[in-house]
């Protein structure tokens, strides 16, 4: 699971469910092949968009 940056192609799914599963696998592969800083910065943006008004950072 170490950081050898390489391009992975996302295969479009034939149904919404298949497309979603393909994306989940694509993202897992992205994590396996990119640095923790890279993927976790992206995850942070998504999570903080959803939680920022609910969770106040510890002072």
């Amino acid at each position: 699971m170490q950081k050898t940056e390489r391009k992975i192609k996302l295969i479009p799914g034939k149904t919404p469910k298949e497309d979603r599963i393909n994306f989940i696998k694509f993202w897992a592969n992205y994590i396996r092949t990119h640095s923790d800083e890279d993927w976790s910065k992206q995850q942070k943006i998504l999570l903080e968009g959803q939680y920022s008004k609910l969770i106040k950072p510890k002072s």
Partner: protein
Amino acid sequence: MLFENNTIKIDKVPNVLDDLVLEFTEILGKYYKYVIISGYVTILLGRTRATEDIDVLIEKRNGEIFSKLWKALLENGFYCLNTENMNEALSYLEEGLAIRFAKTATVIPNFEVKFPKNELEHQALKERIKVELPKGIIFIPKIEQQIAVKRILPASEKDVEDAIYLEELFKGKLNKEKLNHYIELCKKLKEK
């Protein structure tokens, strides 16, 4: 992300959810052996989805320990969503029910805390593994167990997706014997 000797090391950029879990488990871990199960585990390991609750199993200990935990949580800005009465909260736990804690003036996300009820949950606690983050440590079940539970006993489509995600993320690193053991255990529970 490194996975070696029952430890996962993630040099993660901290997010608010991880920070909240670390704040809660830092207090909890002083009094109880714990393990975080279910949805948050996959979020901790990178999945891009939210959750409204963080499920936590704690070992059974006496009432005195629980009162220390209760006091520490209240002092650190948490409250129990089920009751303001500590003895009532403890009696819920002892009845096999879950109690929830959240930060004051909020409801979600919250921590759903319970004692282990079946062999699978006891094993999750006993065989817990460590996730090391830059700001602290969080305990989770073995990855093989999480995959088996989510594959065989899914509560929702999210669980099915979580299983696919974990299998892909830890491809080539899973213990197949362990995975089969947990799958059989889950199947037995499903039949009950």
